[in-house]
């Protein structure tokens, strides 16, 4: 008889889970700022550019994750140049880079005259085929991006909320933005190994979107996003192993299901927390508002 957790005996499953966990931490780390800055499409952009990188890697025989990383960092530089030097709107700049990335990928795939199994594994993810080499790279990038987000958290938060105020107060906005775009490029390049190019931006945005339904502060929202992404990866891999489903799809479907439940719970309990908050404000204004010597909370 086989147990539910027998898969842990296989080293390929251990590697899959480890890589999946790193990606589950990475994606919301970057995703929360991307979503709040309404830049979710940047995820798609890096994914498409990475596809061109992977195609080049396969065509030339270079390690595809490395070429994808190089292409993504290049795209980050192009994006900043288009925005700052040529004053192209960010969404238009993203659209241009997506087109360039995808068309280059198509040409390179055509040149290699085969839509081979390797490319397929990048498109749809191949977490079960992750090599020790891949795992090292994913972990190294994970440590780098998480340290960046930890060290620059207050800047990233301020810029996401109000870029102009951050700039006027003297925050090094340009530097932080540049590092953030680079961190995003790195995150997407390594995450696509797990969920695939087609689904990587979903893992960046969907857990954050679910967390936004329930979060009562930035900190809580971030913690929820980590929990949702972590659970999606764990449960998605578990289901994919037992039901023989595609892991990338199972992971993202789990995330979407969590989002539906989170949005639904908000619908069933319409802003329960907020209702509570409002009552408290009213109570405060009735009981204590007048005792406050400074203009206080009563004008709501």
């Amino acid at each position, binding site marked *: 008889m086989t147990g539910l957790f027998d898969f842990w005996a296989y080293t390929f499953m251990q590697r899959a889970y480890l890589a999946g966990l790193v990606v589950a931490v990475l994606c919301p780390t970057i995703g929360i700022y991307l979503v709040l800055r309404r830049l979710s499409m940047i995820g798609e952009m890096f994914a498409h550019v990475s596809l061109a990188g992977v195609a080049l890697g396969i065509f030339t025989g270079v390690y595809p994750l490395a070429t994808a990383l190089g292409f993504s960092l290049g795209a980050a530089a192009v994006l900043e140049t288009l925005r700052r030097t040529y004053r192209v709107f960010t969404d238009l700049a993203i659209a241009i880079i997506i087109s360039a990335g995808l068309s280059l990928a198509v040409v390179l795939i055509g040149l290699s005259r085969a839509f081979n199994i390797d490319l397929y594994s990048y498109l749809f993810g191949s977490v079960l085929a992750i090599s020790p080499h891949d795992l090292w790279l994913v972990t190294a990038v994970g440590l780098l991006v998480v340290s960046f987000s930890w060290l620059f958290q*207050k800047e990233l938060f301020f810029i996401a909320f109000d870029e102009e105020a951050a700039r006027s107060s003297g925050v090094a906005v340009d530097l932080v933005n540049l590092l953030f775009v680079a961190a995003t490029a790195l995150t997407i390049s390594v995450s696509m190994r797990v969920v695939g190019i087609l689904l990587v931006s979903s893992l960046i945005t969907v857990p954050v979107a679910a967390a936004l339904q329930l979060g009562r502060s930035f900190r809580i929202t971030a913690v929820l996003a980590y929990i949702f992404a972590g659970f999606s990866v764990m449960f998605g891999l578990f289901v994919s192993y037992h039901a023989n489903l595609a892991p990338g799809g199972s992971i993202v479907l789990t995330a979407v299901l969590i989002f539906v439940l989170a949005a639904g719970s908000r619908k069933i309990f319409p802003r329960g927390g*907020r209702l509570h908050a409002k009552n408290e404000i009213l109570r405060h204004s009735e009981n*204590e508002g007048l005792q406050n010597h400074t203009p206080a909370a009563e004008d709501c």
Partner: protein
Amino acid sequence: MRLPVLDLDKITFYYGDRMVLDRVSLTVFSGDFLGIVGPNGSGKSTLLKIIAGLLRPAAGSVRVFGVERENSRRETRIGYVAQNVTSFNQGFPATVEEIVLAGLTASLGLLRRPGRRERLLVEETLESVGLADLRERLIGELSGGQQQRTFIARALVAEPALLLLDEPTVGVDADAKDKFYELLATLRRERGLTLLMVSHDVGVVAEQVQNIACLNGKLYFHGPPAEFRAEDMLCQAYGSAVRILHHGDH
């Protein structure tokens, strides 16, 4: 003698080919409350952005406490509350406390995380603007007036000597407006804050401020409200606006 907090010397600014500010010179002394009035497009907000370091003038200099302002250098002695500050993403998951804490980002510098001292500062600032009890509320749940005070607290927490306010009472109801001016008076008294406020509402500003500057590309008047004979100055500064009004009459 009072110190000049801010010294603008012949500030000139263009948007493309259009000259928006024409050699504007202005000195603001410590403890002053200066209201800048003028019609739409008169360059009021532009001037404030130049002082805040968001725009670079084509010519002229900005001196803060006698030292030339460089846009690249961080200047924590100036606090800036932008126009339409309440037009942010209302669904942003941030509490009042988290937003005010963000005001200390620049003074903490890169790679340093806020600690106990910073949290204490945030608490004190929230007390002084009367938001202490709402610190754990999401920003989107507050009224316009309360949001406005949150953003003032975010600017105040870095303990600036000069606070720049761009149309701070737009979108705030009458009751909250009164409270807002009460708060400004308290801040001036208790913190010795110098205030520079841009507004299109000449009547209200004249009641509240110590000095008025009337701007329309050029500076037309700078002095106490009593000397600001509204009609004369309005005719000069609001020239084009007045003509448009006459067209409407016919």
